[in-house]
């Protein structure tokens, strides 16, 4: 018997590897679940998560975490996006293949079905390329700031979560964390 069409409710997030690791590092995946109906990741990002040791967390989070395989055409498009990221002045790594995770996430976010959704992405060069493509995006700290603004967590909890990510090697500097904390506490831009 044919499956009935899936009814779309709420906002979906397409997520790159970095923000999802940050959510796992700081026990914040439940915030993603509060904010987004589903969180979609590409197969390349899934491979990166497994290589970084987060396989059990990925399995536990599925669903609402959904692993999506790109079509052949989309994979080709992702490669051209990876080239753009590799060439971007804010990027430190010229090897194109090392940017396939971000590139696949951007390609996935460009699907028509995700036109009203958001891409979660932290890296500066990839964000610049995504913005050139017209993708609406947020980094992991932006999700936490929204969580403070909507009363899901306090400003102090935001700071603790970003500190936990930093202590585990994620690239949020102390100055950035303090500035985001002050914005969350005062509810205004620094």
């Amino acid at each position: 018997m044919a499956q009935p069409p899936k009814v779309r409710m709420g906002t979906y997030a397409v997520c790159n590897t970095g923000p999802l690791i940050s959510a796992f590092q700081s026990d914040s995946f439940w915030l993603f679940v509060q904010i987004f109906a589903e969180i979609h990741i590409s197969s390349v990002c899934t491979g990166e998560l497994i290589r970084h040791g987060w396989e059990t967390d990925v399995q536990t989070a599925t669903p609402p975490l959904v692993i999506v395989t790109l079509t052949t055409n989309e994979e080709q498009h992702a490669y051209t996006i990876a080239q753009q990221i590799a060439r971007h002045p804010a990027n430190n790594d010229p090897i194109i293949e090392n940017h396939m995770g971000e590139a696949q996430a951007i390609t996935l976010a460009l699907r028509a079905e995700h036109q009203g959704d958001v891409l979660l992405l932290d890296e500066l060069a990839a964000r610049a390329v995504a913005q050139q493509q017209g993708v609406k995006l947020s980094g992991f700290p932006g999700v936490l700031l929204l969580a403070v603004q909507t009363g899901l967590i306090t400003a102090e909890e935001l700071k603790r979560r970003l500190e936990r990510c930093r202590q585990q090697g994620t690239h949020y500097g102390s100055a950035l964390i303090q500035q985001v904390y002050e914005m969350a506490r005062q509810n205004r831009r620094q």
Partner: protein
Amino acid sequence: MEQKSAHEPTEQVMSASDVWSDAIQLAEVLRQNLRKSEPMVQLQIPFSLFLSAVEEFDRDELVLLRRRVEERLAA
């Protein structure tokens, strides 16, 4: 026990100003999607209250209202 590590720890990330913009954009996306899926109810209110509510409408809402008024006037 899995050995867990961070992703691309040397790459530059967004600034605090970007984080603020991210939260604003995210809130706007959520608001738009909520509006799309929000069920509508009929509500009897005084006309003066409706006119004062119009003062608070943003541009998109005013455009939608104008379209609806023009459709009604043309009917």
